[in-house]
């Protein structure tokens, strides 16, 4: 989840309140904002990516004012009619087709505001832009440019400009090869023959989206008027990013102005700041929440969530401000009602329909196994089903088996899904080599078997394995235990055959057979395996396929 640090002072100034950081930290979770930590000065928060409007203190303050009743209902945003035009050339449509623009005038930015804008830009790049792929944001000092603007694609060596954080002019190709930011995002343009640029009325390159802006238009505390461009591969992401960004600028005191964007096949204006209009059935809200609340109460709750609502008999007309890009369905307002009403004020209730509970047969099967093994003095272990290939096979002195192999493990420790339990138990013995002997351990759990006949390509298989480690641990003891298990499950049609297995000592290895099915392997562990795991104690063991052996 995206994280943000907000100062209590900042929120108090924005909300005209005098709340302590602790008090704020108590209120924010009621908005769905997670508080990570609080100190005297401020709060470290996390917010859900569906609410990109929480990426700035002004955005958080908007919601806070609503829930505190300081300012309720939908904030409205207006933009002046366009006086500037952006022409989108056909050359860019196959590379990075979407672009929107907006102008903000009359800002007086403090140092802190600039920092907040940068943070917001970075977070939106991630949340809505998917790391600049779907949408990337450029914020410029409008006064350093001359209207009107052109968005087009050019060859990599066709133009030169001085990128941000650089002292020299570079061609586009040089930016991608030499500039730090260029190298970082070059993959977004890989394969393209031409690259997108924005030029102004005097022909200057002021942006190379989605890579970097020109140093020419760098924003600082003296910038009064800003130009925002957002380009991308996803129209929705581009439009939504602009809405979230410019409404925040408006709340910072800016006056918004539209830009006319001219495509070869038509013309449109941005930003579009009309509220979205929805219909909410009050019965639907009541039924889902289980709350007997009036339409009037619903309206009030919605307004506390900075929405506008008006009742029309049993239906509500709800208006959402442009930055609420998370609304997909009327159900989203049901949650807003709950938030406005306060989760703390909702009393838990009971389900109405009587049903009878029941455990899965697997749970009962494994419980019986536990009962028997515990009765024989064994202690249960629990290991990960994620496993390491080398430890599962090579160190167990057996050939590599077919296993589910992970494509992208973060940790080298996990490369496959376990196909048998014994390696885990041997590792457990190794872990416990300084604990008192005798040690008798067992595990009952799943392994994963690749299976092409399954839609998911693999099957869970339940296994039971045990290890016995003490100075006189022997095949005999393992065999006694496995026979006791089989007897307890009432299995009669089994026999013991001599077998050969790399993990066990030759001549002291056997399998339990049912018909032609090998259902278990048992024996004394090969000293080579014990040595691999640094175990200086004889070990007898067995592993059995629960479903084949006992069911």
């Amino acid at each position, binding site marked *: 989840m995206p994280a943000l640090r907000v100062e209590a002072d900042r929120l108090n100034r924005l909300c005209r309140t005098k709340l302590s950081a602790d008090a704020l930290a108590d209120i924010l979770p009621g908005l*769905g904002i997670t508080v990570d930590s609080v100190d005297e000065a401020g709060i470290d928060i996390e917010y859900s990516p569906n609410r990109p409007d929480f990426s700035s203190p002004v955005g958080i303050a908007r919601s806070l004012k609503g829930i505190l009743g300081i300012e309720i209902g939908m904030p409205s945003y207006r933009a002046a009619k366009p006086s500037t035009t952006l022409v989108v050339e056909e050359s860019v449509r196959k590379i990075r087709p979407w672009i929107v623009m907006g102008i903000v005038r009359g800002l007086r930015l403090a140092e802190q505001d600039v920092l907040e804008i940068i943070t917001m830009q970075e977070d939106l790049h991630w949340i809505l832009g998917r790391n600049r792929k779907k949408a990337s944001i450029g914020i410029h000092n409008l006064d350093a440019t001359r209207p009107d603007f052109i968005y087009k694609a050019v060859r990599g060596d066709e133009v030169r400009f001085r990128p941000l954080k650089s002292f020299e002019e570079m061609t586009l190709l040089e930016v991608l090869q030499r500039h730090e930011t260029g190298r970082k995002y070059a993959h977004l343009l890989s394969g393209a023959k031409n690259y997108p640029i924005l030029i102004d009325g005097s022909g200057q390159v002021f942006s190379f989206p989605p890579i970097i802006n020109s140093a020419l238009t760098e924003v600082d505390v003296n910038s009064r008027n800003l130009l925002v461009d957002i380009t991308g591969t996803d129209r929705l992401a581009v439009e939504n990013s602009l809405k979230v960004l410019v409404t925040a600028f408006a709340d910072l005191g800016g006056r918004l102005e539209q830009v006319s964007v001219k495509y070869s096949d038509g013309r449109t204006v941005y930003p579009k700041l009309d509220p979205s209009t929805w219909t909410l059935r009050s019965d639907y809200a009541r039924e889902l929440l289980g709350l007997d609340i009036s339409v009037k109460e619903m309206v009030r709750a919605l307004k506390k969530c900075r929405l506008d609502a008006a009742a029309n008999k049993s239906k509500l007309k709800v208006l959402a401000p442009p930055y609420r890009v998370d609304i997909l369905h009327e159900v989203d307002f049901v*949650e807003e009602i709950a938030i406005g009403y306060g989760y703390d004020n909702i009393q838990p209730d009971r389900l109405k329909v009587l049903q009878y509970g029941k455990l899965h047969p697997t749970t009962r099967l494994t419980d019986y196994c536990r009962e028997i093994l515990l009765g024989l003095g064994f202690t249960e272990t629990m290991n990960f089903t994620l496993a390491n290939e080398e430890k599962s096979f090579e160190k167990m002195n057996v050939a590599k088996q077919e296993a589910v192999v992970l494509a992208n493990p973060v940790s080298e420790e996990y490369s496959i899904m376990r196909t048998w339990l014994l390696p885990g138990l041997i590792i457990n013995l190794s872990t416990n080599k300084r604990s008192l002997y005798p040690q008798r351990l067992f595990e009952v759990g799943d392994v994963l078997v690749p299976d092409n006949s399954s839609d998911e390509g693999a099957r869970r298989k339940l296994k039971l394995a045990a290890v016995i480690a003490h100075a006189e641990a022997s095949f005999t003891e393992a065999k006694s235990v496995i026979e006791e298990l089989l007897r307890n499950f009432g299995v009669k049609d089994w026999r013991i055959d001599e077998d050969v297995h790399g993990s066990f000592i030759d001549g002291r290895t056997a399998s339990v057979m049912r018909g032609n099915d090998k259902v278990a392997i048992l024996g004394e562990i090969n000293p080579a395996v014990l040595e691999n795991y640094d175990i200086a104690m004889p070990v007898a063991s067995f592993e059995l396929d629960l479903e084949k052996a006992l069911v």
Partner: protein
Amino acid sequence: MSKLRELEKPASYVDLSRALNRPIGAVAKAASWLSEKRLVNITEQKVLKASLGAEGLAYLEMGFPERRLVEALVKLGGAPTLEKCRESSQLTEQEFNIAVLWAKRKGWISVDREGPKTVLKVSKYPEKGIDERAVEKISRGTSHLDELGRDLREACLELSRRPSVVDIIEERIHLLEITSTGRTIPVEELGREEVTQLSPELLASGKWREVSIGRFNVRAPTPVVFAGKKHPLQKLVEAVKEIFVELGFEEIRGPLMELAFWNFDALFQPQDHPAREMHDTFYIKSPDRGRLPAPSLVQRVKSVHENGALANSIGWRYSWSKDEASRLILRTHTTATTIRHLASHREPPVKVFSVDRIYRNERVDWRRIAEFHQIEGIAMERRATLRDLMGVITEFYGRLGLTKIRFYPSYFPYTEPSAEVRAYLPSRRTWLEMGGMGIFRPEVTLPLGVRHPVIAWGLGLERLAATLLELEDIRTLYFNDLAWVRSLPTTYLENILRKKDIVGGG
């Protein structure tokens, strides 16, 4: 034994040996046998004992040399010369010197010079001294220093400095005291053969009646044994399952390796959702694609993602890929299994749960593991509500002993309204984030053909366990350290949950 009872006081081996007229060795052997049976207590004492040496015995018979000197002096007229005296005193040279020394020291004689001669004179009547009485006393057999009066004791010590007169030796004596058992046990039982182990033969033959079974020192250390134990986490899993069964839920189970379709798409998670990225989800190398379910269902899921129309939603508005949905992964939540169940159980009521393994592609450290359990459940009723959901969760944690619960708004792509639950742990004085919940969105339920509200939750198990067990490192749960498992009381859960965390006691 009988004698001891008669004596009614502690007695030493010597005493008993005399009283019973048996050798000391025999008494000692019997005493140690009785002691093993806890019929008597033997205490050892150290005593100082005086006995007469060779000189001492001679003094007893003939008198102390100084007395014999004075008697000789009297016979010789009271003041003979030294030479005269030495000749006629019948004392040896050595005795004579000692006699002169002691007689002088006791003030019985004086040694004067008269011209060239040395003259011995009797100066005092030699009363019988304490030292002489001491020798007599020792000779009569009272030899323990402790039993003598103070004067006599000192005299003995003084005499021990005179060569071979009195020897003081340290002697250990054993005192037997009868125990309460010893006082009451029938005397006839004492004569039996003793066995250390009751054997099948003794039982079969009935001979056990004739033998006595050796007594053990019940306080002696014994070898340590450990009970076989369930894994601590398994105990919590069972407690959780028990509660949901009590609440009328049926347990379900599903694939660990899962189609992205069931794990994400059917749950209305857009295909470019960050959770689906490689660094959050384990993808499978081979096979990397599975088979999607019925085309009609796939089509409905596709359309709800793309335009939402069939659920009266606006959808995510992007182009949905069948290939992306058929990728194979390790399930990131058990909700994948729940949604499979729901797809084939579309009519209410449905109440199912699972407590099973899920996977996240995390770098493992003390706070995070890549594989853990989720406590999952859903309930579908014609009129299931958010309040019902809060009710189930409150009841669940209440039965675990966590009675202080708070709900907060939260967000999941597949639920609306959504909530997060926190529980207060009085034993740790902290609120703990327990998990998420909500009502499945219409975009989730309608493509499956489910037309009624489904309340759902996914709660954490390991974090609860780690907090309850006060583990700093969550990996401890899967480390299987026997010392730790053996040290946890079988009742650990009850100890933690039911006692500490029920306000006002359970």
